[in-house]
């Protein structure tokens, strides 16, 4: 069943929607009463520890647990033999334990459960592990070198969970976009060709609650209480890895202490599950902060070369790019994320001919994964810096160039999808107005720092995908909403979603009880991420609410002796149109229904409509080739750069964000402030470097520099409403996109301030100082990319070009 806007528009209960309603979970969180997974315990519970590899690559010669098993308190030890399956997102290439070979520093080899965590760690350390080292490919350049050892010599045998991509050697996945005749466009004699090269680093999600799980084995099934964004993916992934039926896994999720994408895959749950079964006892596994630093599914590091042919008056007649994304030792999310470059790096602007290749590359490093606005952050950094380099080469005004070229109503995106509505252009005007309305940041005359401003645009999307919901209208007039939605802190399940469902049923948002995620109770859900919760869970909840509403009105129609279509549902009452005295409380109708026809329950579901489509032959290896619900953003950053130290201070930050319709404007404001600050960390000081041993050098918050209060500013935000969206009430996701263009805005501002070519993020003080002085890093050199675009493609370039729409 699908939500119909027409039906919803008939009813008038605007109270819940558009209101800054508070969070129902705030008070317990402020009292310290909220129980996260890390706070959970059970009688008789054991504690788990993992023995991880301390080399980045090698052949496992021997694993001997004899001594460890005899140690005090040890109750179970499990390893590769206990988990025969492989999992992944695009390709099933990832075992639970290193099997035969080790592919990254920190890869699990065995898991131990003991009476105390100290005993478990001691036993894990006592496991004898002999590994014969192999040459480790720690960079994409090394992995792509001619004759480089393959990390996965058996890659041809892996199950492809999604078909259609090119794979081979250390290229885990390759996606291409080809449209028009790029050769001809680049050869035109009236164009200037601008080439830019960029690199970006990894970013650790650093949720304050680490990944954690408490597992029990009950009546032949696994019950996993876990800190995740994706209960259903944990259910199915655990089953795959353990070689059991998915129905034998139940996942329940209490409040989650932050996710940001780091909990978007199955992670430590299968270890706890195996140990619980082996020991017959509840088992808790909690990653230490060091384990989180070494093995989090970081935002991937990336390398980008982008080249455009632009006419003197600023028309982009062709664009090509090569994008390398480091997936680490296993594919994980990256095969999916290669799809995003088409919409991010090749988003924002009208383009003539297009050719783009995006490759996920295996390296002997910890697997990377999803992080808020995955791929979009560095793609937008590269695109917007490239745009400013084009403007510099042609002597064009940066804002005017963007005004002229941003996608508008009826324009065609890189994969040929037709965009609906003028959104970015009016948003640029709103940014100018926001700037003019804000106070100028004054610096002392002798400040001595270099000032600069960056104004950038960004394109993101709603990861529409399947969600299911059940709505019960109880005899006391309250409503219960059952979904597999998880509260990770963004507030969607405690603010926007109950607000939307309340609107459907004419009740107050606080009358809607939201059940915490439980895969035994709620139907499938693709998870909390991709800006999808409010849209997908909200739409499924709306559909379920409308189903329940119809049943309620049928009963009320009998009670009021009126036709169902003459009834109104608002303020907790059913009333007859034109006769306000004729009314009943929802509770009275629901109680009556319970006695006569049974309790009222509605079910609903949602998935993407596929309303946007790419041109045939344009995109290959893509999981999403067109954006059903694009989201746009305009960001502006003002910086002061200290030429003595290289320190960048953010003086002011402004956001104009396309929200479709703001269900809870204040909650969106909180997402914008938080997302921008995460982006400032990414742009400026969250740096991960890898030692020669393949281990990350940053192992805690002492060396991994997260933004602190003194690093940040209060963001000025303007919510842009009215852009098209088929989300409930016209809503779009608002939680992911705030981080999207931050690195772009900062990098463009630093380039503006210094007059130097900014090619790398993060812009740490030494790096910025290097830009200003004799740059020790030198310009970015991507020698492992072939000069000709087609030589970077595994696929048959001639066939791709032949199939491309003109």
């Amino acid at each position: 069943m699908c939500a119909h806007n027409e039906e919803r528009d008939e009813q008038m209960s605007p109270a819940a929607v558009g209101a800054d309603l508070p969070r129902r979970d705030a008070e317990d969180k402020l009292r310290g009463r909220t129980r996260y997974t890390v706070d959970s315990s059970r009688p008789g519970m054991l504690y788990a520890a993992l023995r991880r590899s301390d080399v980045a690559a090698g052949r496992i010669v021997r694993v001997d647990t004899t001594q460890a098993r005899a140690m005090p308190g040890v109750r179970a030890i499990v390893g590769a033999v206990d988990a025969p399956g492989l999992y992944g997102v695009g390709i099933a290439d990832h075992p639970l334990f290193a099997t035969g070979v080790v592919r990254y520093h920190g890869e699990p080899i065995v898991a131990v459960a003991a009476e105390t965590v100290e005993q478990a760690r001691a036993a894990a350390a006592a496991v004898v592990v002999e590994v014969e080292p192999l040459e480790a490919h720690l960079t994409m350049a090394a992995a792509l070198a001619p004759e480089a050892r393959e990390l996965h010599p058996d890659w041809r045998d892996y199950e492809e969970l999604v078909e259609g991509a090119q794979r081979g050697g250390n290229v885990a996945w390759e996606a291409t976009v080809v449209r028009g005749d790029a050769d001809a466009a680049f050869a035109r004699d009236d164009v200037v060709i601008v080439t830019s090269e960029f690199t970006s680093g990894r970013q650790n999600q650093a949720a304050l609650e680490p990944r954690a799980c408490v597992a029990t084995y009950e009546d032949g099934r696994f019950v996993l209480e876990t800190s995740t964004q994706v209960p259903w993916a944990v259910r199915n992934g655990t089953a795959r890895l353990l070689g059991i039926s998915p129905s034998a896994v139940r996942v329940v999720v209490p409040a989650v202490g932050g996710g940001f994408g780091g909990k978007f895959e199955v992670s430590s749950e299968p270890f706890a599950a195996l140990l619980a079964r082996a020991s017959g006892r509840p088992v808790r596994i909690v990653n230490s902060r060091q384990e989180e630093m070494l093995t989090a599914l970081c935002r991937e590091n990336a390398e980008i070369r982008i080249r455009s042919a632009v006419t003197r008056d600023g028309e982009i007649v062709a664009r090509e790019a090569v994008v390398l994304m480091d997936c680490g030792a296993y594919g994980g999310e990256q095969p999916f994320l290669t799809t995003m470059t088409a919409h991010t790096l090749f988003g924002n602007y009208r383009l003539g001919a297009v050719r783009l290749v995006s490759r996920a590359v295996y390296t002997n490093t910890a697997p990377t994964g999803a992080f808020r606005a995955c791929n979009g952050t560095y793609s937008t950094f590269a695109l917007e810096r490239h745009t400013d380099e084009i403007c510099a080469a042609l002597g064009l005004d940066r804002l005017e160039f963007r005004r002229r070229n941003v996608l508008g109503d009826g324009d065609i995106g890189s994969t040929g999808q037709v965009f609906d509505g003028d959104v970015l252009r009016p948003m640029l005007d709103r940014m100018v107005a926001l700037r003019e309305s804000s106070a100028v940041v004054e610096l002392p005359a002798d400040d001595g720092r270099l000032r600069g401003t960056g104004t950038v645009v960004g394109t993101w999307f709603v990861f529409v995908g399947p969600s299911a919901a059940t709505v019960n209208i109880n005899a006391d007039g309250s409503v219960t909403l059952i979904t597999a939605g998880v509260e990770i802190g963004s507030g969607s399940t405690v603010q926007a979603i109950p607000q939307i469902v309340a609107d459907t049923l004419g009740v107050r948002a606080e009358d809607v009880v939201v059940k915490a995620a439980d895969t035994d109770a709620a139907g499938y859900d693709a998870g909390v991420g991709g800006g999808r919760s409010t849209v997908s869970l909200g739409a499924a909840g709306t559909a379920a609410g409308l189903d329940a509403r119809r049943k309620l009105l049928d009963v009320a129609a009998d009670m009021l002796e009126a036709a169902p279509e003459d009834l109104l549902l608002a303020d907790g009452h059913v009333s007859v149109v034109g006769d306000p005295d004729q009314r009943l409380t929802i509770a009275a109708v629901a109680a009556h229904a319970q006695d006569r026809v049974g309790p009222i329950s509605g079910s609903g579901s949602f998935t993407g409509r596929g309303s946007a489509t790419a041109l045939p032959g344009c995109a290959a290896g893509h999981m999403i080739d067109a954006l059903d619900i694009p989201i746009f953003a305009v960001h502006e950053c003002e910086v002061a750069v200290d030429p003595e130290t290289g320190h960048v201070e953010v003086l002011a930050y402004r956001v104009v964000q396309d929200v479709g319709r703001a269900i809870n404007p204040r909650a969106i404001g909180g997402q914008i402030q938080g997302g921008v600050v995460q982006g400032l960390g990414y742009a400026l000081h969250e740096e991960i470097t890898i030692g020669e041993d393949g281990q990350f050098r940053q192992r805690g918050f002492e060396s991994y520099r997260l933004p602190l209060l003194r690093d940040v500013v209060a963001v000025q935000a303007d919510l842009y409403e009215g852009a098209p969206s088929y989300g409930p009430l016209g809503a779009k996701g608002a939680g992911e996109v705030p981080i999207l263009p931050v690195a772009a805005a900062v990098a463009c501002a630093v380039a503006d301030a210094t007059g130097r070519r900014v090619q790398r993020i993060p812009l740490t003080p030494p790096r910025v100082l290097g830009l200003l002085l004799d740059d020790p890093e030198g310009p970015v050199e991507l020698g492992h990319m072939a000069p000709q675009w087609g030589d970077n493609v595994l696929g048959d370039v001639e066939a791709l070009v032949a199939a491309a729409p003109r």
Partner: protein
Amino acid sequence: MTIELTVNGETRTVTAAPLTPLAEVLREELYLTGTKQACGEGFCGSCTVLLDDAAAPSCLTPVGMAAGKAVRTIESLAPGMSELSPLQQAMKDADAVQCGMCFPGILMGLTALLARQPEPTEDDVRTALSGHLCRCTGYARIVDAALSVCVPAERGV
């Protein structure tokens, strides 16, 4: 060994090695799980408790060192289900909370500031907050809410 602690005004007897981090004893033995342990290395502030009214990272405080001192945790700010403290109420009213993991430490840090300095300046408040990591909120609302309680507008800075 057996250690006697005063926690939130009550005498508690715990069994732990004296070098065990106080945070672990509070969380695992006394089930006072409001105190968080997000890094366990003293860099995030989520484990902040009061020891004789001074803020201390309980992850780096050996439980033996807490014997004889008054330990206060987040659970003491509004004991039982009594009314929220003004600081808690301000955070709630400002819609400052997101995942919530950092708030127990932040609230205890600010409580220590007010105990030490009943009339702090805006800069004092910012300094007190600067050792607390929050990954969700970007701090702005936390600062505004804290200032509204600690530095009332009529008093100024």
